[in-house]
């Protein structure tokens, strides 16, 4: 009986170790001119908020912690990043039309006000990603300001 348990334990460890060989591709791209921060002036306070709460899943530059390398966590995170970037990628902001920018900004405002973003699983671990009401308000205010700016020059 003891032997079987020990064997089972060993097997589990082996499977866990084997899993580590299957690492998803890392999301660590270069920051280019298409990045939101290079497309428009974003106030430092808003940048800090976006960096802390959004950029890990919505840009080509994820800040990995050590445990993100562990399989299961790494797979889950990779999934979030892929899906998150499909909806919104701040690193490729420059390729969006004015209309899509206005639309995504509106969605950002809505998601954050509803408390749907950042994802609960993320803010559970990352305390600095929990946004206060004041922070949400300042994000919304910057968004409104930016949207109005986008309307002014008829660029297309």
């Amino acid at each position, binding site marked *: 009986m003891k032997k079987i348990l020990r064997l089972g334990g060993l097997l589990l460890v082996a499977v866990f170790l084997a899993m580590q060989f299957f690492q998803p591709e890392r999301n660590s791209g270069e920051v280019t001119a298409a990045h939101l921060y290079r497309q428009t002036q974003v106030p430092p306070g808003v940048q800090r908020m976006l960096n802390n709460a959004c950029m890990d899943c919505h840009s080509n530059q994820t800040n990995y912690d050590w445990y993100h390398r562990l399989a299961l966590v790494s797979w889950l995170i990779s999934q979030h990043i892929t899906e998150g970037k499909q909806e919104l990628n701040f690193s490729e902001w420059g390729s969006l039309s004015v209309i899509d920018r206005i639309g995504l900004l509106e969605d950002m405002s809505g998601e954050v006000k509803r408390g749907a973003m950042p994802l609960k699983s993320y803010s559970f671990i990352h305390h600095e990603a929990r946004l206060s009401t004041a922070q949400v308000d300042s994000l919304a205010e910057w968004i409104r300001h930016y949207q109005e700016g986008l309307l002014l020059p*008829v660029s297309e």
Partner: protein
Amino acid sequence: MHALNKITCWEVFTGAPNYSSDGWAFNCEIMIKQAHLFVLLMALPGATAAFAQEAPKPEKITYPMPGQVKTVMINKCYDCHYDGERDEEAKAGLNFNTLDQLGKIKQLAVFSNIQKEIEKGAMPPKKFVTKYPKAALTKEEADLLVEWVKKESAALLKQ
């Protein structure tokens, strides 16, 4: 004899196989014809009601749009995207009853989302379309809506 006919007739009607041909077959044919007529007559008022309900209700969408576009929006989108919808998320994403009262930024955002949802094939929702295949947008309808949304947002942007 009569009762027997009825029973066998029911069997014929429902596709039950073994029956003999000793005179009741003729009766049976008449009965089946009568039954069909009966069903047709019963169904008629229901059918007209359904037809009347499906006729476009253009006054419900107040945002100006070409008739063809409006018809598609009413038939394929309106029922989940108006004041009476219980799903708050659906209403927040698009509400035809308030669309024309929104500011330009909000309208542009709605149009951008409509285009995205249609291009992704995400509206009407997949689950709904699986259950009611007729609810799906045809390729022509999808193209029509996307074309209009694009034109309308470009025009709004220039205003």
